[in-house]
């Protein structure tokens, strides 16, 4: 049987009414748990995996796919509506998405996120089915030096995309980088900045920082405005649905986000966040509406959300082709596969085609179910914003702490949540952007470790950082991204730059 036959057969199995129901239940459960701030897809899948054991292999595989996509998607809803990203990969979504929600455009923001996720999931799953073996070859070419170059690129593009003041953006970033140093140094096993506190040995959990800085910092900041703000946000202004204009501005970011997110997700050390960062930076540079960035640009939601979902499918590339679990979620999925007698590895496509294609078909169906579930719910979700502030924010704090307690029930973790919440509040008061702190915490260790690995492997020869073609290209792009705006600015006011500058002040 050829590739298409297997896929078709898988789809036929997955499309049976009972299996569709399982997909719907899986997506619902995944979304319900994934929506909690602090509970990312990994924990969602780990918690819900036992549910699938009760079913026959086909049904359990499809429910599992539903949980996976539901968990991935759940985080963006709270990001957009409440400015509380549930996990690190939906932080960028909060930047523009929440501004849109505040302006009564939560409906289109959620819709572009849901449809973008669907489009990205569809393309990426098909890519997984047909070009996985080639993608994985590319991913393996990436060694420490290439990753280091990628991190440099991410730093350069991301730092230029945040905030209106260079001083404040850099300060935020360096606060994040400082936090990133805390804990055991991975390469030598020595502790840094832990001051003998055992709870700090593993460093600061990204989700704890993100939930604290966004959810708690935001709550404190809103509360400190006293009675000045309106008691309720206007939930819907204009249509709850996407306008023709929204569609026109969304489809390109969806595709770009997919093409950025999928290969990065496929890289063993890529990670979903980096795809979302790069996608956001790309959209900000390419948009025809630069003045809207920072005030609720739909491109800034569409691109990163697509990138996020595409990289989720990308994670499956090394998992299915090499048996490499590259994220915690993938590691749990690996455990799940073993329940079905599936041993991921280079021979999987050859020895177990039915199950692999069944899984891919399940992913397609689950992806579709996600859309079916979420589009009608958008009207309901935006109504969350009409809950009076005292109850709304009390509820946000309840669920934010629930996520943290559920992931790690320690008093120390809650203490950190409070401390970083206060930090987030103070930073808001003084106009510091929040996202670069989290970006620093995520990218800092990756960049440092890869640099040190590269130098260690080359026994201290610095030239290796530039001599690999891929690394060289990435570094040149990073240099251009850094220098070109400076030159343009120095040469006076290019038309585009004037516009950009206008948006930045």
């Amino acid at each position, binding site marked *: 049987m050829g590739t298409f036959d297997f896929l078709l057969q898988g789809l036929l199995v997955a499309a049976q009414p009972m299996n569709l129901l399982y997909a719907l239940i899986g997506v619902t459960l995944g979304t319900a748990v994934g929506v909690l701030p602090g509970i990312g897809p990994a924990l969602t899948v780990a918690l819900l995996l*036992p549910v699938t054991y009760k079913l026959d292999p086909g049904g359990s595989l499809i429910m599992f796919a539903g949980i996976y996509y539901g968990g991935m998607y759940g985080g963006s809803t709270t990001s957009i509506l409440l400015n509380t990203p549930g996990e690190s990969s939906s932080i960028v979504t909060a930047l523009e998405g929440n501004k849109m929600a505040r302006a009564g455009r939560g409906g289109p923001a959620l819709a572009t996120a849901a449809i973008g996720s669907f489009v990205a999931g569809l393309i990426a799953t098909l890519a997984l089915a047909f070009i996985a073996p080639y993608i994985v070859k590319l991913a393996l070419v990436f060694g420490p030096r290439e990753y280091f170059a990628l991190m440099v690129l991410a730093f350069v593009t991301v730092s230029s995309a945040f905030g209106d*003041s260079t001083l404040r953006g850099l300060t935020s970033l360096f606060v994040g*980088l400082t936090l990133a140093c805390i804990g055991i140094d991975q390469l030598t096993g020595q502790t840094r900045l832990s001051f003998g506190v055992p709870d700090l040995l593993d460093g600061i959990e990204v989700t704890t920082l993100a939930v604290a800085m966004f959810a708690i910092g935001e709550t404190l900041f809103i*509360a400190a*405005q006293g009675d000045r703000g309106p008691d309720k946000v206007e939930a819907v202004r204009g249509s709850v649905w996407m306008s023709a204009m929204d569609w026109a501005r969304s489809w390109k970011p969806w595709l770009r986000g997919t093409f950025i997110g999928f290969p990065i997700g496929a890289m063993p050390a890529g990670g979903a966040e980096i795809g979302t960062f790069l996608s956001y930076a790309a959209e900000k540079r390419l948009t025809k509406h630069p003045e809207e960035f920072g005030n609720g640009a739909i491109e800034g939601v569409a691109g990163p959300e697509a990138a996020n979902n595409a990289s989720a499918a990308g994670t499956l590339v090394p998992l299915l082709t090499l048996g490499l679990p590259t994220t915690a979620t993938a590691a749990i999925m690996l455990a799940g596969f073993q329940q079905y007698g599936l041993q991921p590895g280079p021979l999987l496509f050859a020895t177990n085609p039915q199950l692999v294609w069944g899984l891919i078909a399940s992913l397609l169906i689950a992806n579709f179910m996600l859309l079916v579930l979420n589009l009608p719910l958008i009207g309901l979700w935006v109504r969350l914003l009409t809950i009076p502030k005292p109850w709304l924010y009390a509820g946000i704090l*309840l669920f934010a702490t629930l996520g943290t307690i*559920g992931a790690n*029930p320690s008093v120390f973790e809650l203490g950190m949540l*409070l401390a970083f919440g206060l930090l987030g509040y103070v930073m808001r008061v003084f106009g510091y952007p929040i996202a670069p702190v989290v970006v620093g915490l995520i990218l800092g260790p990756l960049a440092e470790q890869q640099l040190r690995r590269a130098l260690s492997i080359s026994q201290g020869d610095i030239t290796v950082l530039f001599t690999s073609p891929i690394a060289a290209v990435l570094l040149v792009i990073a240099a251009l991204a850094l220098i070109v705006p400076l030159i343009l600015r120095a040469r006076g006011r290019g038309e585009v730059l004037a516009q950009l500058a206008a948006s930045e002040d």
Partner: protein
Amino acid sequence: MNKGNNPSAETRRPDRAALIIAVVLAAIAGLIFWDVSRLSGLAGYSQVGPTTVPYAIAFCLVGLAIWTAAEALRGDFGHEREKQEFGPVVWIVGGLAAQMLLLNTLGFSIATGILFAMTACGFGKRRLWFTIPIGIAFSYLVWLIFAKLLQLSLPAGPLERLFF
């Protein structure tokens, strides 16, 4: 650091809050220098060891502190700071602290119910005799769903043990 309520937008006087921020940044840099200096280099074959990056970050923080101080002295630090009301902030911080301290003894529902009520209080719902029971009831429902049905481990207290 909380002295952020002076409307400094139009003043050209040195910005006290910004100066404090500069001092804090410098202090963090000092902390890094102090902590990292006791590490052994142990770089192995790479000339970038476990101490290199923290030192670089500390140097940059010193630079940012100087930059911030310079802007503060010139009165350029800018950014309109809205007047902050600290009453609500204290209520919410108190709620989070109470939850943290009571969680392991009183269990999830009671501790989180108190957080819920104190947050609502910070937003103007002052009737604690009314909001605390609501908070506890709601938290209990949440606990039932997540701890009992979804097997998330949330600490149980007297209230939870009463029924399970």
